[in-house]
């Protein structure tokens, strides 16, 4: 079984996001970038399938500029077998990414595609679902457990009311939630080996996809600074302030 995992380069979760002074975008100059944490979970899920003897090959795909090869190398160090960078320039919107991935799927013919449920920069939570629609494949989003039995995929999903269990036919799309697994560290020998693993670069044109911007970024603003709290002396004072100052009751 062949597994395709997607990997996105995003601002590191430790970094305090800063808006550019001209409000045109988030400032990414010399800021630490990393693999989207949900994508790390997706890679780990694929590697565990391979370690369990259920998957034979793991292909990691990333859409974006050349810099995202760094995250592909991380995926290769974690256990993916080869990488594909789709050189799209700056990251397209989710539908563009889904179309590019659909073209990769058509060429690679994987049995399973594992994606992060969303990326921590845009937080769109759309690409997996759009890819499933474009391919007309079954999908299980927000997976917190994953098992493959007799060619069928059993997925536990985290939903508002609790847990939902699904059984899917392959090929299928899975998007990962936080509790699916705890990703491993890449070891030094594996990082060295990863540098020698194959990494292909493809353009949207080669994949036959014309990217179209469906959204336009008008302006980015930092959220308002939080005001310091106050201590109130009594319940009646609290109620009074909630009514007259906070105006929430």
């Amino acid at each position: 079984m062949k597994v395709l995992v997607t990997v996105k380069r995003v601002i590191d979760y430790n970094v305090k996001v800063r808006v550019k002074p001209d409000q045109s975008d988030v400032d990414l100059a010399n800021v630490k970038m990393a693999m989207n944490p949900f994508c790390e979970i997706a890679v780990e899920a694929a590697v565990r399938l391979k370690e369990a003897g259920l998957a034979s090959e793991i292909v990691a795909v990333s859409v974006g500029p050349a810099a995202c090869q760094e995250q592909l190398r991380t995926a290769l160090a974690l256990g993916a077998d080869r990488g594909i960078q789709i050189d799209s320039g700056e990251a397209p919107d989710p539908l563009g990414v889904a179309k590019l991935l659909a073209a990769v799927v058509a060429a690679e013919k994987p049995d399973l595609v594992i994606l992060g449920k969303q990326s921590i920069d845009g937080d769109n939570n759309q690409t997996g679902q759009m890819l499933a629609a474009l391919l007309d494949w079954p999908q299980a989003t927000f997976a917190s457990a994953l098992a493959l039995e007799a060619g069928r995929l059993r997925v536990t999903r985290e939903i508002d009311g609790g847990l939902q269990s699904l059984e899917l036919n392959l090929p299928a799309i899975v998007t990962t939630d936080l509790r699916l697994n705890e990703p491993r560290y890449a070891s030094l020998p594996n990082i060295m080996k990863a540098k020698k693993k194959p990494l292909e670069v493809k353009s949207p044109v080669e994949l036959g996809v014309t990217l179209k911007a469906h959204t336009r970024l008008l302006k980015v603003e930092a959220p308002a600074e939080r005001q310091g709290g106050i201590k109130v002396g009594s319940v009646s004072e609290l109620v009074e302030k909630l009514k007259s100052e906070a105006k929430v009751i």
Partner: protein
Amino acid sequence: MREAMEFDVVIVGAGPAGLSAACRLMQLANEQGRPLEVCVVEKGSEVGAHILSGAVFESRALEELFPDWRERGAPLHTPVSADEVYLLKDAERALKLPDALLPKSLHNAGNHIVSLGNLVRWLGEQAEALGVQVFPGFAVAEVLHDENGRVKGVVTGDMGVAADGSHKDGFMPGMELHARYTLFAEGCRGHLGKQLVERFGLAGDTDPQHYGLGIKELWDIEPSRHRPGLVIHGAGWPLDKDSGGGFFLYHAENHQVVVGLIVDLNYANPWLSPFDEFQRLKHHPVLKQYLEGGKRVSYGARAIAKGGFNALPEMAFPGGLLLGCDAGTLNVAKIKGSHTAMKSGLLAAETVFAALLEELPDSAWAPRWKAAFEASWLHEELYRSRNFGPALHRLGPLAGGAFNVVEQNVFAGRLPFTLHDREADHARLRPAAECPPIVYPKPDGVLGFDRLGSVFLSNTNHEEDQPCHLRLADPAIPIGRNLPLYAEPAQRYCPAGVYEVLEEEQGGPRLQINAQNCLHCKTCDIKDPAQNIVWTTPEGGGGPNYPNM
């Protein structure tokens, strides 16, 4: 059982010294068509993540390493356009010193204002392109010695260890990195460098190393106030006459300025808080005129080794070298350490490469290193500035400053005597009861800020569930001795709020160590009066994530 990997040279620390050594080694190997395995291990999450410096950069060593650095796109974008030096007399008044009264070493024409972090990121790319294996995110925990005591490599820290020492799900044991030569370029007060100096007696009869704590912020300022290339230095207020130090404010590119204060860590008053001194400094008109209306975007801190020539240990030991600030090659007369650190890396690479080619034993290699170092401009520069720091420490800022002007401008550092400064910084702390408490103004949230809000801007983080990397040799000392005698100064000298003395309702005061906030500045390891705090490496990848610092 730990796995091992073999290299020709292992370098600890991807800073100016370590990366310069790595690049030069590969240049030499590529020129001579000799295969060479060089690896650089870096505890920061990426190359540059832990780098913090002013910085006004002198490009001499960079020219030697990459004569075509301009074509290669080295990020030296802002030539120094003007130098100003002030003596701040109090919270309002300042004296601007005329050029003629300044030591020549403080003139910066020809230098550039840089982000050292970005320069190091660039150096990291050059190193990788040359074929160096660069491994960020791995902390080196231990030095390995062979049966004769020669250094034969290092061990990276275990990953995935819980606070109680148990192994978590993703546990990955450390890895042995064996090398024919191991170069330590950890920066000031490297925790392995400290062990090597002790084990091999490298300090000999040199003066004790002296340190300063540098605290720095990056600001977006109003474009109308921005004067690209302007370099401002100064001393005086808010530090009192018994506490040495100085501030800097550099106008970098993109309407940004960097502003910082270096406080000498030989201060005596345990009530002094370098962080709070810096916060109030920014209200002085000399600085405020630029910062007002601006927005602070980053914060960080790092100790610097400023003992210079007189405190410089032997850099060579069996199996390797201490480089850059790990040894203490900063030129305090110029307030610059990057070019000297890089030069130490270049010299190391050249001698180590020759030794590898000729398969020299340490007994033949070490004297060659020494000869190469002593014949270099690095040695010359450090020798000529040897009296600068001690003069300030011993004669005070005025007489010492005057001495420095005469020595540097008239005699070019060639006076036939050497001033020494023999007291270690931590030993200078006086009991709290003998010193006047210092009351700092509450931060206004405009120019001055509190510690936690500042630490937030350093993007520092450490995996929460791991053993505390700040070890107390004797856990009873902070509360039993430091608190009554010195009012536990760690609460004040730590620029990240790592150390807190909490009053418990039962059981009295207790020291809390918030190791997650640590900026890896090493001040606690230096200034604790009992020398009881040992800084060790946390899990790799932890610590600050400085952008553009």
